[in-house]
């Protein structure tokens, strides 16, 4: 490393004609980005194109992929299991995104008040992000058991045994709940950083003008944390689109497929049934969903760049 840096100063010496000097600097810039471009070409865009191509084939890893046209797509479009998984994924994304955002914002507002020990609450809450997801799933599977802690804590309020994980109408809600528990404290930190950055005199001025608590929140806090709000919504939607482990471990996709999401269907189709072509066509649907939120993220980013 040292030898390399010692050898460099010659390049930067000024006698070079300005154009060539700038070109040299530029070349360094390209050089810094190049490994990443190569990586993404190989592990992101290459696989993307391959997945598109595979989705038009039938391939079981024996022999070579056989082109079948749109067969995979027409087949999955008529497959109730796919329709159900697609619906589940969309419901999950919507539920998780909405509740992560609301809970994260609520926690951030609570924690960012000038309350004694607010940093301690924040660090405490953030611990939900330190636990590995596997551990999260295993623990919550016990907590949501009919005799588990959640029902034990609800029983004084008159709730009878609730079958969180085996009642088809509750299972997805339970998974969303675990997701919110896990991710809301993370996004809380994003909100806190933005809320703390709002100058205190904004609020004082509003207070003097007689603005109530809600009015101050609505007209000062919300507009000023808008970029973070969009960021949290889009990123939690992208996160939720990828969900696999929580339904896989907590409910196994059940009851009756009520929590089976697209990534589980891709895994089962490709790696349990070895239908790689069909699995690729299902992942195209997952891709389409992720693309919507990525485009939103890019527009958000571009707007931020213009500021």
């Amino acid at each position, binding site marked *: *490393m040292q030898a390399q*840096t010692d050898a*460099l*100063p010659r*390049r*930067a*010496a*000024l006698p070079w004609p300005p154009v060539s000097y700038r070109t040299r*600097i*530029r070349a360094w*810039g390209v050089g810094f980005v190049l*490994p*990443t*471009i190569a*990586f*993404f070409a*190989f*592990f*992101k*865009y*290459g696989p993307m194109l*391959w*997945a598109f191509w595979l989705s038009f084939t039938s391939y079981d890893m024996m022999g070579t992929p056989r082109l079948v046209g749109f067969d995979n797509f027409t087949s999955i479009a008529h497959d109730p299991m796919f329709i159900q998984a697609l619906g589940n994924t969309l419901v999950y994304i919507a539920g998780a995104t909405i509740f992560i955002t609301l809970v994260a914002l609520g926690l951030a507002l609570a924690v960012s008040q000038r*309350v*004694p*020990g607010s940093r301690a*609450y924040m660090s405490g*809450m953030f611990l*939900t*992000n*330190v*636990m*590995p997801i*596997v551990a999260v799933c*295993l*623990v919550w599977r016990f*907590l949501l058991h009919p*005799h588990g*802690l959640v029902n*034990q804590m609800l029983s004084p309020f008159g709730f009878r045994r609730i079958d969180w994980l085996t009642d088809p109408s509750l299972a997805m809600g339970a998974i969303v709940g675990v997701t919110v528990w896990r991710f809301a404290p993370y996004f809380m*930190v*994003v909100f806190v*950083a*933005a809320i703390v950055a709002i100058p205190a005199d904004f609020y004082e001025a509003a207070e*003097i003008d007689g603005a109530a608590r809600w009015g101050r929140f609505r007209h000062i806090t919300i507009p000023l944390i808008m*970029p*973070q709000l969009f*960021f949290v919504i889009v990123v939690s939607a*992208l996160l939720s689109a*990828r969900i*696999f*482990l929580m339904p896989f471990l907590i409910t196994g996709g059940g009851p009756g497929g009520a929590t089976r999401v697209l990534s589980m269907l891709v895994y089962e189709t*490709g790696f349990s049934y070895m239908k790689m072509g069909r699995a690729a066509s299902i*992942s195209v649907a997952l891709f389409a969903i*992720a693309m919507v*939120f*990525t485009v939103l993220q890019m527009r*958000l*980013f571009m707007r*931020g760049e213009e500021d």
Partner: protein
Amino acid sequence: MVRRLPSVRRMLPWLAVPPLAALTLLLILPIIWMLSTSFQSGDKMYQLTTEWIPKVWHPENYPNALSRAAFPLFFLNSAVVSIAVMVGNIIFCTLAGYGLAKYRFPGDRFVLLAILSTLMLPLEVTLVPTFLIIHKLGWLNTYQGIFAPLLVDAFGIFLMRQFILKIPTDYLEAARIDGVGEFGILWRIIVPQCKSAIAVLAIFAFRDSWDQFLWPLVVVSRDDFRTYPLGLVRFGEDYGNPPTEQMAIAVLATIPVFVLFILLQRFVKTGFGLSGLKG
């Protein structure tokens, strides 16, 4: 109106302490449950009440769990993979972030958007072809097969780029005039000022890789390369393994991430606000 404010201001914060403390406790209750359960005796699990502090402690759950399956090896495998992913992200994301923040070259804008658009291509989407690539490379059941597709992450690049953008370009120009090369600028000026961003990057790269489940599940079929999440799930599926020992492994798996957070916390304080794409 204005006169009333000070006393209210002094009272109000303390009134908020009990509910906030209760809320925090409620949120970390599952973690406390995990800890407490890992020290219980196996048959206590199926009681109708939760015994928060074990009447009889069973620390032997830990050595028992570790000896029942090859967990020391699984943890080692996870550590190797996660450290590789962490180092890869630190190197590549810093390089790319620096290149994108401080250099103009033809197509730089396009590269930026191309990197951002990989957010729509997580491993869950490219699972089948990425598996086929690793298969073709002969990397099934190898460490590099598990970590290679995770070595760079778009979020990490943006974290570094947004952070480096804030470093005044004048510093770089001054260094160039002093004859420092481009790599020297990165190493001596950029990196020392980016410690907090690199700390955030390191933590999350490690954590995300430590959490990986689906990808190792697909590329690993042999015990020698199984990571601890695969081992733990299989351990739970095997009949007769007490859940308390499962929790012991879960506690052990939490420790490395926890320690990393504690170690890097002083950097994180400043770096965290930047974890958003918009700096």
